[in-house]
């Protein structure tokens, strides 16, 4: 029973990782950039939802929507100001810029809200229903359900809609896509907005289950989600989902059965093994369809 419980916990955090990993994966697919600032978008989202709810006294649903919009806008601004001027320069410059953006977001938030962690009071009703001698909280179920719904919606968006088709085309070959009359700039901005919006949802779910907000919370969360994206095959949507869930379960099991302090080391160990054995991950097979 404990084992199943750990697995369920793992799936809960894994669903959050998967949402974040999707953002990494889509952005990587479309501009070939590891967006280091993506983890900090989660941090921004956490602060935003906290601010909207405690300072502006918004109801939870309005705060959530406002957070998603806020993060999407921040994502677009970052893309326009920091990444767009560098689209044709060396990859290493782009990577360093992304690190710079990440540091900038962290430190600006730290300057505004100080480094002390803030407490977030969850709006999901506490309690849950019990199976055996353990109880499964509503937070766990809601997190898993929302993540699953979003993933289905995203898959439909990418495979069925016009903008989804444009995203796939740009990630395949952006010059050709441009010749076919696709507005590459808008598509890239949309991808950033979508990824940041997903990160905002992940942020809301994350603060509901872990209730603590700090300026540096995003970097570790972002790195773990990145490991998930690489594990599943960066650039692939089902890969990011599977990777997120696997990483979540692996982390939960390590914490439960080995040592909670070594969990990070185990995750990075997984990353290193994946990169060495199969750098393309589970689904990212070379030139396969990527978004």
């Amino acid at each position, binding site marked *: 029973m404990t084992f199943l419980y750990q697995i369920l916990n793992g799936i809960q955090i894994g669903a959050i990782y998967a949402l974040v990993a999707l953002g990494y994966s889509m952005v990587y697919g479309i501009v070939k950039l590891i967006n280091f600032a993506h983890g900090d978008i989660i941090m921004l989202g956490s602060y935003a939802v906290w601010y909207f709810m405690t300072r502006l006294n918004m109801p939870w649903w309005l705060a959530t929507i406002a957070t998603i919009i806020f993060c999407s806008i921040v994502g677009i601004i970052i893309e326009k100001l920091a990444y767009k001027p560098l689209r044709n320069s060396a990859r290493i410059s782009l990577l*360093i810029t992304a*690190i710079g953006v*990440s540091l*900038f977001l962290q430190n*600006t938030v730290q300057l505004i809200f100080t480094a002390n962690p803030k407490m977030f009071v969850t709006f999901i009703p506490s309690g849950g229903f019990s199976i055996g001698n353990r109880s499964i909280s509503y937070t766990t179920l809601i997190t898993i359900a929302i993540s699953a719904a979003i993933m289905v919606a995203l898959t439909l968006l990418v495979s069925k809609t016009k903008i989804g088709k444009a995203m796939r085309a740009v990630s395949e070959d952006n010059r050709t896509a441009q010749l076919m009359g696709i507005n590459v700039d808008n598509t890239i901005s949309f991808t950033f907005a979508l990824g940041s919006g997903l990160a905002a949802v992940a942020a809301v779910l994350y603060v509901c289950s872990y209730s603590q907000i700090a300026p540096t919370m995003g970097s570790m969360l972002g790195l773990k989600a990145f490991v998930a994206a690489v594990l599943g095959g960066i650039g692939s949507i089902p890969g990011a989902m599977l990777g997120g869930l696997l990483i979540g379960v692996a982390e939960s099991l390590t914490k439960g059965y080995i040592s909670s302090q070594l969990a*990070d080391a185990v995750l990075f160990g997984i990353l290193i093994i994946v*990169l060495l054995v199969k750098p393309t991950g589970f689904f990212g097979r070379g030139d396969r369809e990527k978004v």
Partner: protein
Amino acid sequence: MKPTRLIDKTWFRYIINTIAVLLAFGLLVLLTGPTGEGGLLNKYMSQIFIPMGINIILAVSLNLTAGFLGQLPLGHAGFMSVGAYAAALFSIHTDFPKAISFPLSLIVGGIVAAIFGILIGLPALRLKGDYLAIITLGFGEIIRVIILNIPKITGGAYGLKGIPKDTTVISTFVCVVITLFLIHALIKSRHGRAIISIREDEIASEASGIPTTYYKVTTFSFSAFFAGIAGGLYAHFIGVLDPAEFGFMRSVEILVMVVLGGMGSIIGSVVAAGALTVLPEVLRGFSEYRMVVYSLLLIVVMVFKPSGLFGRYDFSLCGAASDIAKAIKKLTHRNKLGIHEEAGK
């Protein structure tokens, strides 16, 4: 003009540079005093030269992989921590006289870091670009977590205490000079040209018969060696080692110095490391904004001048001297020509 002038001879250049180093050394002693006290600057101000020197070693050694080899590792602080702990443990657990123990501990720190460099470099350098950055970041974090989890040896989260505070301004200066000389000599050698060729085009250099894997791993561990030495200096400067000091942020700070100075420019790294160490001290009241300014600087430099302040320019004392001499000669020569022309009319 003779075909081989004095200034083109290698031995003459060595003499000039040795004299310059000795002059700098004399200036430093004048400023800080022979034992770190009693110079023109007070004790607090002379202490700043130590972290400055440590940062210069770190930045120049990272520049070797980032600027000259063209790979971007994000785990430089990991090597620094390995060197720091190795050197500190060596100092604590052996009882040689101080004059032998301290330099020996630095070398031990450097060698242990270099071994880690080979161990990490062999698998990591099979990857390129972003993936290399991520895998080295992963290794850096793993090193930190492991140090945190073997408290019997490293003191864990409480830190390693009781390290003799042996680092002085002078020993730091000596280490900086040796590092700069060795890295400069490496870059100017046959091996250095091989390393630069890998940066320019890895496939072409491999096709020209350069063993790229060998050079990549060697350069990586060479760079780790100096990071280890810097770590040893740091350990003996602070006296207490805390694993939290060697996180990702530290690696990024070193990277900022390299990028700002210019990837592939040693003088750039030296200037940027020096400036970024002194500035926060000067702007004490401004310290909250330090990281915000750093990160903005990083973005702005990347967007507007991706090659950094110095680009790939490297300063050479004799080169500068001969440039000046040439310019003067040209000037006087032109004057003479002018006179002749006037006479001809």
